[in-house]
């Protein structure tokens, strides 16, 4: 339970800033060590029900994250009920952009749980450190073993089987640590067939297979400095998307970086860390397995990004600060080639991303000042420059004649937050202001088919910046036996970008019913609230519960899509000797505030029950854990508000896994 406390504490309270301070304090040991908290975090990528989870399953255990699901793989994470354009998703601060116009490849699909140390989620403008954002930031932190650990070799191996979709996985990671040299390596395979819903019907095209490997090498160049190179290679093949009219044939990502880190014993600056990075993503769809498609279409996409992230941590007395410089250049290309029934005839070709370049350069700062024992103030901001260029701007001119080929934007952000701790109570209030630029699709997309509302979407290069005004507050109470915390945030977003039906043009994609253009609403309002509680019923019996509520409306008072209805999660955890028993229940209430305008229909309430038990034993230097459990124990048939095309979710799934640590 304590462990879980740390997990959730780190994830949701944004202790990361403090983690950086800890790092600074460790300098006195005159060793380059990664922060202790990251070492602890090695065991963090697991949910309370399952010890071997996918990145998606892990993210799902956060109460700030919900998912749009198009199948069993590559779920699109929504932060604060906002889609991925509104959040910055980074891997160790590196920007990576998916290569699929239909969002079949969120960045989270290019990593694997065994090469991550933790996932750092920040809400709203507090997440502006990595770049302009509205919803916040999700930073996937890779494993990075410290130099000179007592244990030279360490690692883990996990294997398991899930019965519902016959998922079989093998995950292994190994680390070597000496005083001079560190190696981190991981490799993973996952393969799953179609899953079955709660009516025991097979959901066709829901299979997937994924291979992921990573390697990191660090070398200590002096007692206070080190260099590190990292690479992740990910390949997903034959991935079904039951909610879409096509599947994924192949997606590949290579994510590389080289960094230099310098610690300072004296002075204001404690750590300086600079990283150069490059990543290339390719994504090829496949519609040949869908006989319902009248027209065969090739839809390849490519996204290449290179960039620089440079960070310095400063500390003076009870004031600490983190300054970061972000620079990146991304080129996104997506094509569509349609083949007429008579294949001898000429194919039809267009770009859905006409070679869209995005360049960003920005400086951000996070400050934290403990001005009394009881209170702390955090404040910061960023100033960024965003540049877009569409190489084949003539595509954009079809709907927006004469629009400029290049566009520059200035993206400022500011936030402040005050925290007060009085005995067992803690309170915080905060506010934020920030801009974001439209994404490649929103700005320059061309006939991007959205199978949810069945419209073709056209980007508008002239969109204004989306401007977010944000307020947040929390109140909590904690003692040795129990804790309770309530958090709310509210976003008033000007120029909120949505797709609106265009009176011009006619659909291009076979299944579509019309054309929508990205336009700015005058404003939109989003409200999120969560209530968390925990209680130790007995010494070894713990209860935890979460209640989440969100509401979002446009300037007409209409509902926005993909907003989580009132939902809950409750769990019990019991420990007995080397056994752990967990059971949890979660569900949504009916999605009454759905948005028919965006293709949503009423999703009914559902409740699912999960249970698992694990047993840990040691032999020699190894620690092994065996787990067996069931998700959706009563085989409920359900589909949530965020299931694309209302595809049913997985029915009863019995999972087993075995993990060795050494």
């Amino acid at each position: 339970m304590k462990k879980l406390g740390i997990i959730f504490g780190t994830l949701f309270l944004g202790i990361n800033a403090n983690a950086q301070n800890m790092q600074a304090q460790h300098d006195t040991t005159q060793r380059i060590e990664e922060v202790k908290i990251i070492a602890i975090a090695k065991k963090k990528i697991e949910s309370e029900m399952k010890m071997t989870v996918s990145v998606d399953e892990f993210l799902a255990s956060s109460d700030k994250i919900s998912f749009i699901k198009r199948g069993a793989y590559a779920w699109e994470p929504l932060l604060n009920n906002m889609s991925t354009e509104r959040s910055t998703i980074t891997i160790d601060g590196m920007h990576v952009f998916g290569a699929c116009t239909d969002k079949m490849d969120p960045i989270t699909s290019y990593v694997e749980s065994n090469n991550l140390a933790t996932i750092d989620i920040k809400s709203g403008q507090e997440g502006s450190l990595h770049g302009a954002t509205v919803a916040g930031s999700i930073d996937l932190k890779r494993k990075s073993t410290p130099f000179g650990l007592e244990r030279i070799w360490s690692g883990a191996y996990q294997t398991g089987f899930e019965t519902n979709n016959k998922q079989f996985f093998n995950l292994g990671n190994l680390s070597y640590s000496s005083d001079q040299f560190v190696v981190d390596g991981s490799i993973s395979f996952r393969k799953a067939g179609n899953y079955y819903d709660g009516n025991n019907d097979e959901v066709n095209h829901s299979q997937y297979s994924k291979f992921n490997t990573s390697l990191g090498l660090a070398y200590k160049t002096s007692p206070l400095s080190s260099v590190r190179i990292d690479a992740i290679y990910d390949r997903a093949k034959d991935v079904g998307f039951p909610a879409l009219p096509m599947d994924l044939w192949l997606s590949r990502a290579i994510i590389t970086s080289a960094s230099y880190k310098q610690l300072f014993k004296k002075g204001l600056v404690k750590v300086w860390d600079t990283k150069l990075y490059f990543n290339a993503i390719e994504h090829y769809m496949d519609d040949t397995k869908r006989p319902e498609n009248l027209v065969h279409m090739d839809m390849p996409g490519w996204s290449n990004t290179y960039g620089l992230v440079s960070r310095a941590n400063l500390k003076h007395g009870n004031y600490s600060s983190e300054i970061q410089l972000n620079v990146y250049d991304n080129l996104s290309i997506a094509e569509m080639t349609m083949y007429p029934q008579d294949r001898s005839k000429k194919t039809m070709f267009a770009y859905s991303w006409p070679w869209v370049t995005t360049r960003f350069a920005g400086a951000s700062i996070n400050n934290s000042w403990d001005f009394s024992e009881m209170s702390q103030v955090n404040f910061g901001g960023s100033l960024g420059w965003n540049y877009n260029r569409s190489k084949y701007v003539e595509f954009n001119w079809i709907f927006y004649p004469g629009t400029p080929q290049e566009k520059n934007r200035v993206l400022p952000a500011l936030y402040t937050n005050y925290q007060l701790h009085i005995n067992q109570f803690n309170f915080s209030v905060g506010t934020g202001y920030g801009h974001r630029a439209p994404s490649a699709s929103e700005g320059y997309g061309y006939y991007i088919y959205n199978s949810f509302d069945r419209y073709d979407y056209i980007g508008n290069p002239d969109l204004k910046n989306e401007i977010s005004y944000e307020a947040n507050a929390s109140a909590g109470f904690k003692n040795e036996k129990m804790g309770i915390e309530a958090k709310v945030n509210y976003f008033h977003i000007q120029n909120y970008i949505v797709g609106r039906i265009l009176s011009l043009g006619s659909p291009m994609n076979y299944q579509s019913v019309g054309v929508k253009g990205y336009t700015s609403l005058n404003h939109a309002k989003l409200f999120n609230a969560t209530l968390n509680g925990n209680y130790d019923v007995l010494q070894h019996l713990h209860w935890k519960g979460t209640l989440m509520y969100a509401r979002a409306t446009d300037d007409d008072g209409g509902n926005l899509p993909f907003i989580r209805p009132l939902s809950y999660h409750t769990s019990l955890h019991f420990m007995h000797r080397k056994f752990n028993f967990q059971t949890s229940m979660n569900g949504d209430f009916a999605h009454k505030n759905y948005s028919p305008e965006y293709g949503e229909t009423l999703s009914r309430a559902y409740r699912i029950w999960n249970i698992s038990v694990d047993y840990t034993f040691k032999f020699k230097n190894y620690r092994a854990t065996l787990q067996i459990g069931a998700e959706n124990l009563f085989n409920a048939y359900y589909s949530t508000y965020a299931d694309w095309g209302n595809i049913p979710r997985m029915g009863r799934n019995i999972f087993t896994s075995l993990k060795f640590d050494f």
Partner: protein
Amino acid sequence: MKKLIFFLITLCFALVSCTKEKTDYEAEIDTVVTDHFEFKEAVAFNTEGYNISIEALNGTFYKGYNEIRLKITNIQTNEDADASVVTFLPITVNAVGNKVSCPHLHELAYQPDENYFSGYAVFTSESNIDSIWELYISFRISNQAYKVKQIITVQEQTNKNLNMTSFTGNDDEQYFITLVSPQKPKIAENVLVAGIYRFNQPTNPPSGDFPDPSQFSYTEVSDYTLQLDPRMPEPSMGNHSSPNNKDLIQQSNGLYYGVVNYTMTGNWTLNFIMLNQRGQILKGTVVPTDFTPGVEGIKSELHIDILF
């Protein structure tokens, strides 16, 4: 260590190379259509000490619209002849054996800067055994009239973007519409240029030596409107169209200018409705605008198919 880094870098490059090649968009458009910018000699012949050279784009006469440049030189002095009143008349034999012409500019216009005579011809068929095209050219030099006849070859226009159509309008007049530009459309806004011509029915019987120009007279119609609705006819495209198109109206050079947006490469049909000065429909029907996947698009009775 060094070896390892080297290995990794090599590995990176190997992995970075793409699985599928990107489409070379510019080449994609080029392969189907080559545009011709250059005027080259298409035919040259001599008469009574003068050389007549006619230039056309790519040195070829094609079915459809041809801009022509005619030069007359004195063979002896090899200098440009001081010719005037240059007339140009193409004649062929139609299926029923009648001698017919095609839309053309009869009296060519002198371009003093370049020292040639410019005009155009809209050949309505390709040359073959049954249909031979002859040019009848006359000019005056120093008050002396010259006449000459020359067989030419009209080739098939493989670029469908320069297609033409001929039809009889509701006013019983014979019309010709020919596409002039773009030769090489883009997925973009394209300025669409067309010529619209009418055959002037002769009011008098032929007189004088053959050919009597009054029997073969065509004019550019003025102040008509060509309403445009471009669509993709493939069944799989479901009658797809594009936004922001503009109807064709006449500009000072006599040709009709409008805007067509092509949203992707492939087969397109330009559906037209032709209106006269008073807004009366002379030809063409309104096409359905519904998106009908799986059904071949219905075309206007006045249309030109293009492909790029």
